[in-house]
Protein backbone atom coordinates (compact mmCIF):
# COMPACT_ATOMS: atom_id res chain seq x y z
CA UNK A 1 0.00 0.00 0.00
CA UNK A 2 2.87 2.37 0.73
CA UNK A 3 5.10 1.34 -2.11
CA UNK A 4 6.62 4.36 -3.85
CA UNK A 5 4.48 5.80 -6.60
CA UNK A 6 5.80 5.40 -10.11
CA UNK A 7 7.45 8.54 -11.42
CA UNK A 8 8.04 9.91 -14.86
CA UNK A 9 11.61 10.74 -15.75
CA UNK A 10 12.26 14.43 -16.27
CA UNK A 11 12.19 14.26 -20.06
CA UNK A 12 8.84 12.46 -20.12
CA UNK A 13 7.44 14.82 -17.51
CA UNK A 14 8.58 17.82 -19.52
CA UNK A 15 6.99 16.50 -22.70
CA UNK A 16 3.68 15.90 -20.99
CA UNK A 17 3.77 19.26 -19.21
CA UNK A 18 4.60 21.03 -22.49
CA UNK A 19 1.57 19.42 -24.10
CA UNK A 20 -0.56 20.79 -21.26
CA UNK A 21 0.52 24.42 -21.67
CA UNK A 22 -2.43 25.27 -23.96
CA UNK A 23 -4.80 23.86 -21.33
CA UNK A 24 -3.12 25.77 -18.51
CA UNK A 25 -3.57 28.93 -20.58
CA UNK A 26 -7.23 28.17 -21.26
CA UNK A 27 -8.07 27.38 -17.63
CA UNK A 28 -6.18 30.48 -16.47
CA UNK A 29 -8.06 32.60 -19.01
CA UNK A 30 -11.35 31.31 -17.63
CA UNK A 31 -10.29 32.23 -14.10
CA UNK A 32 -8.92 35.71 -14.62
CA UNK A 33 -10.17 36.93 -17.97
CA UNK A 34 -7.37 39.22 -19.03
CA UNK A 35 -5.18 37.26 -21.46
CA UNK A 36 -1.88 38.79 -20.36
CA UNK A 37 -2.53 38.19 -16.67
CA UNK A 38 -3.81 34.73 -17.47
CA UNK A 39 -0.54 33.86 -19.19
CA UNK A 40 1.34 35.17 -16.15
CA UNK A 41 -0.71 32.80 -13.99
CA UNK A 42 -0.27 29.90 -16.43
CA UNK A 43 3.52 30.40 -16.53
CA UNK A 44 3.67 30.47 -12.76
CA UNK A 45 1.64 27.26 -12.61
CA UNK A 46 3.83 25.59 -15.24
CA UNK A 47 7.01 26.37 -13.28
CA UNK A 48 5.48 25.26 -9.97
CA UNK A 49 4.37 22.04 -11.64
CA UNK A 50 7.89 21.49 -12.92
CA UNK A 51 9.35 22.10 -9.48
CA UNK A 52 6.80 19.73 -7.93
CA UNK A 53 7.33 17.00 -10.54
CA UNK A 54 8.52 14.48 -7.96
CA UNK A 55 5.07 14.50 -6.41
CA UNK A 56 3.37 13.60 -9.68
CA UNK A 57 2.40 9.97 -9.93
CA UNK A 58 2.90 8.48 -13.39
CA UNK A 59 -0.30 7.22 -14.95
CA UNK A 60 -2.55 9.69 -13.17
CA UNK A 61 -4.14 12.66 -14.93
CA UNK A 62 -1.50 15.37 -15.21
CA UNK A 63 -4.07 17.88 -16.44
CA UNK A 64 -6.08 17.60 -13.22
CA UNK A 65 -2.87 17.68 -11.19
CA UNK A 66 -1.56 20.80 -12.94
CA UNK A 67 -4.96 22.52 -12.82
CA UNK A 68 -4.94 22.00 -9.06
CA UNK A 69 -1.61 23.81 -8.83
CA UNK A 70 -2.82 26.64 -11.06
CA UNK A 71 -6.02 27.07 -9.10
CA UNK A 72 -4.17 27.09 -5.78
CA UNK A 73 -1.91 29.88 -7.03
CA UNK A 74 -4.89 31.86 -8.25
CA UNK A 75 -6.72 31.66 -4.93
CA UNK A 76 -3.75 31.88 -2.58
CA UNK A 77 -1.87 34.85 -3.96
CA UNK A 78 -4.50 37.41 -3.27
CA UNK A 79 -2.41 40.46 -3.93
CA UNK A 80 -1.43 39.49 -7.43
CA UNK A 81 -2.86 41.65 -10.19
CA UNK A 82 -4.94 38.89 -11.77
CA UNK A 83 -7.23 38.79 -8.76
CA UNK A 84 -8.33 42.36 -9.40
CA UNK A 85 -9.29 41.84 -12.99
CA UNK A 86 -12.99 41.51 -13.68
CA UNK A 87 -13.95 39.70 -16.83
CA UNK A 88 -13.85 42.52 -19.34
CA UNK A 89 -16.45 42.39 -22.10
CA UNK A 90 -14.27 44.43 -24.45
CA UNK A 91 -11.35 42.11 -23.96
CA UNK A 92 -13.68 39.18 -24.45
CA UNK A 93 -14.98 40.67 -27.65
CA UNK A 94 -11.56 41.28 -29.13
CA UNK A 95 -10.57 37.78 -28.11
CA UNK A 96 -13.62 35.97 -29.36
CA UNK A 97 -15.04 37.71 -32.40
CA UNK A 98 -13.60 35.89 -35.35
CA UNK A 99 -12.92 37.92 -38.48
CA UNK A 100 -14.18 35.17 -40.75
CA UNK A 101 -17.44 34.56 -38.89
CA UNK A 102 -18.41 37.44 -36.61
CA UNK A 103 -21.81 35.92 -35.84
CA UNK A 104 -20.08 32.98 -34.16
CA UNK A 105 -18.11 35.43 -32.08
CA UNK A 106 -21.21 37.19 -30.85
CA UNK A 107 -22.75 33.89 -29.79
CA UNK A 108 -19.63 33.05 -27.87
CA UNK A 109 -19.52 36.54 -26.43
CA UNK A 110 -23.04 36.13 -25.04
CA UNK A 111 -22.05 32.84 -23.43
CA UNK A 112 -18.81 34.26 -22.12
CA UNK A 113 -20.52 37.28 -20.62
CA UNK A 114 -23.03 35.00 -18.93
CA UNK A 115 -20.23 32.85 -17.56
CA UNK A 116 -18.48 35.99 -16.33
CA UNK A 117 -21.45 36.87 -14.15
CA UNK A 118 -21.43 33.53 -12.35
CA UNK A 119 -19.90 33.04 -8.92
CA UNK A 120 -16.33 31.88 -9.46
CA UNK A 121 -16.89 28.41 -8.01
CA UNK A 122 -19.78 27.73 -10.36
CA UNK A 123 -17.96 29.09 -13.39
CA UNK A 124 -14.88 26.98 -12.82
CA UNK A 125 -16.96 23.85 -12.26
CA UNK A 126 -18.79 24.34 -15.54
CA UNK A 127 -15.57 25.12 -17.43
CA UNK A 128 -13.66 22.17 -16.01
CA UNK A 129 -16.40 19.65 -16.74
CA UNK A 130 -18.09 21.13 -19.79
CA UNK A 131 -15.06 22.43 -21.67
CA UNK A 132 -11.87 21.17 -20.05
CA UNK A 133 -12.83 17.53 -20.39
CA UNK A 134 -12.41 16.63 -16.73
CA UNK A 135 -14.67 14.09 -15.09
CA UNK A 136 -16.74 15.18 -12.10
CA UNK A 137 -14.28 13.26 -9.94
CA UNK A 138 -11.26 15.03 -11.42
CA UNK A 139 -12.94 18.44 -11.16
CA UNK A 140 -13.70 17.71 -7.50
CA UNK A 141 -10.03 16.92 -6.96
CA UNK A 142 -8.97 20.18 -8.63
CA UNK A 143 -11.38 22.23 -6.51
CA UNK A 144 -10.72 20.30 -3.27
CA UNK A 145 -14.36 19.49 -2.74
CA UNK A 146 -16.75 16.56 -2.88
CA UNK A 147 -18.00 15.17 -6.18
CA UNK A 148 -21.53 16.05 -5.11
CA UNK A 149 -20.46 19.64 -4.55
CA UNK A 150 -19.11 19.85 -8.10
CA UNK A 151 -22.31 18.40 -9.50
CA UNK A 152 -24.31 20.91 -7.49
CA UNK A 153 -22.16 23.83 -8.69
CA UNK A 154 -22.48 22.72 -12.30
CA UNK A 155 -26.22 22.45 -11.87
CA UNK A 156 -26.50 25.92 -10.36
CA UNK A 157 -24.17 27.32 -13.04
CA UNK A 158 -26.41 25.81 -15.68
CA UNK A 159 -29.48 27.41 -14.21
CA UNK A 160 -27.83 30.81 -13.74
CA UNK A 161 -26.43 30.94 -17.27
CA UNK A 162 -29.78 29.81 -18.58
CA UNK A 163 -31.53 32.67 -16.81
CA UNK A 164 -28.96 35.20 -18.03
CA UNK A 165 -29.19 34.12 -21.65
CA UNK A 166 -32.98 34.08 -21.49
CA UNK A 167 -33.03 37.55 -19.93
CA UNK A 168 -30.72 39.01 -22.53
CA UNK A 169 -32.42 37.31 -25.43
CA UNK A 170 -29.03 36.87 -26.99
CA UNK A 171 -26.87 34.02 -28.03
CA UNK A 172 -28.53 30.65 -28.13
CA UNK A 173 -32.12 31.74 -28.03
CA UNK A 174 -31.84 34.18 -30.92
CA UNK A 175 -30.97 32.27 -34.03
CA UNK A 176 -32.01 28.64 -33.85
CA UNK A 177 -34.98 28.83 -31.52
CA UNK A 178 -32.99 27.10 -28.83
CA UNK A 179 -34.30 27.36 -25.31
CA UNK A 180 -31.27 27.83 -23.14
CA UNK A 181 -32.63 25.85 -20.21
CA UNK A 182 -33.17 22.83 -22.41
CA UNK A 183 -29.82 23.33 -24.04
CA UNK A 184 -28.04 23.35 -20.72
CA UNK A 185 -29.75 20.17 -19.65
CA UNK A 186 -28.39 18.73 -22.83
CA UNK A 187 -24.85 19.90 -22.27
CA UNK A 188 -24.69 18.18 -18.94
CA UNK A 189 -25.89 14.97 -20.50
CA UNK A 190 -23.11 15.45 -22.94
CA UNK A 191 -20.59 16.19 -20.19
CA UNK A 192 -21.63 12.93 -18.52
CA UNK A 193 -21.19 11.20 -21.82
CA UNK A 194 -17.70 12.65 -22.28
CA UNK A 195 -16.74 11.89 -18.69
CA UNK A 196 -17.86 8.30 -19.03
CA UNK A 197 -15.43 7.87 -21.90
CA UNK A 198 -12.40 8.48 -19.67
Amino acid at each position, binding site marked *: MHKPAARLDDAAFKRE*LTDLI*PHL*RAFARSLCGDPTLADDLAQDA*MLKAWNARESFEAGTNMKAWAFTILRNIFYSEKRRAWRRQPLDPEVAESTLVSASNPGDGLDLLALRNALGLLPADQREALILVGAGGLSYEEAAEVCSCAVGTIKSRVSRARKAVTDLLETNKTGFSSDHGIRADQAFDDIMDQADHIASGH
Partner: protein
Amino acid sequence: MMADRKPTGKVSADPDRKRRGDRLGEQLRRLYDDVTQEDVPDDFLRLLEEADRADPPRASDPDA
Protein backbone atom coordinates in the same frame (compact mmCIF):
# COMPACT_ATOMS: atom_id res chain seq x y z
CA MET B 1 -19.87 4.73 -13.91
CA MET B 2 -21.98 7.50 -15.36
CA ALA B 3 -22.79 5.37 -18.36
CA ASP B 4 -24.04 2.55 -16.17
CA ARG B 5 -26.72 4.71 -14.64
CA LYS B 6 -28.06 5.85 -17.94
CA PRO B 7 -29.55 4.00 -20.86
CA THR B 8 -27.27 4.56 -23.82
CA GLY B 9 -30.14 5.84 -25.93
CA LYS B 10 -31.08 8.67 -23.60
CA VAL B 11 -29.05 11.47 -25.15
CA SER B 12 -30.22 10.71 -28.66
CA ALA B 13 -33.82 9.90 -27.74
CA ASP B 14 -34.93 13.40 -28.74
CA PRO B 15 -33.07 14.53 -31.89
CA ASP B 16 -33.91 18.22 -31.34
CA ARG B 17 -32.69 18.07 -27.79
CA LYS B 18 -29.52 16.38 -28.90
CA ARG B 19 -28.95 18.99 -31.61
CA ARG B 20 -29.36 21.84 -29.13
CA GLY B 21 -27.01 20.14 -26.68
CA ASP B 22 -24.46 19.54 -29.41
CA ARG B 23 -24.57 23.21 -30.36
CA LEU B 24 -24.25 24.55 -26.83
CA GLY B 25 -21.65 22.00 -25.83
CA GLU B 26 -19.69 22.90 -28.90
CA GLN B 27 -19.80 26.59 -28.01
CA LEU B 28 -18.66 26.07 -24.44
CA ARG B 29 -15.77 23.98 -25.68
CA ARG B 30 -14.97 26.56 -28.34
CA LEU B 31 -14.56 29.27 -25.72
CA TYR B 32 -11.93 27.02 -24.22
CA ASP B 33 -10.42 25.73 -27.44
CA ASP B 34 -10.06 29.22 -28.88
CA VAL B 35 -7.30 29.52 -26.28
CA THR B 36 -5.84 26.02 -26.55
CA GLN B 37 -5.52 26.47 -30.31
CA GLU B 38 -3.52 29.69 -30.02
CA ASP B 39 0.21 29.41 -30.57
CA VAL B 40 1.91 29.03 -27.21
CA PRO B 41 3.96 32.18 -26.52
CA ASP B 42 7.71 31.55 -26.70
CA ASP B 43 8.06 32.64 -23.08
CA PHE B 44 6.52 29.40 -21.84
CA LEU B 45 8.96 27.09 -23.58
CA ARG B 46 11.92 29.34 -22.78
CA LEU B 47 11.03 29.41 -19.07
CA LEU B 48 10.58 25.65 -18.95
CA GLU B 49 13.92 25.07 -20.69
CA GLU B 50 15.63 27.44 -18.27
CA ALA B 51 14.07 25.69 -15.29
CA ASP B 52 15.17 22.33 -16.64
CA ARG B 53 18.75 23.47 -17.16
CA ALA B 54 18.94 25.21 -13.79
CA ASP B 55 17.76 22.20 -11.79
CA PRO B 56 20.32 19.91 -10.21
CA PRO B 57 19.61 16.19 -10.61
CA ARG B 58 16.89 15.07 -8.27
CA ALA B 59 18.25 13.93 -4.91
CA SER B 60 15.84 11.02 -4.79
CA ASP B 61 16.68 9.79 -8.26
CA PRO B 62 18.38 6.42 -7.69
CA ASP B 63 20.43 6.85 -10.86
CA ALA B 64 21.69 10.31 -9.98
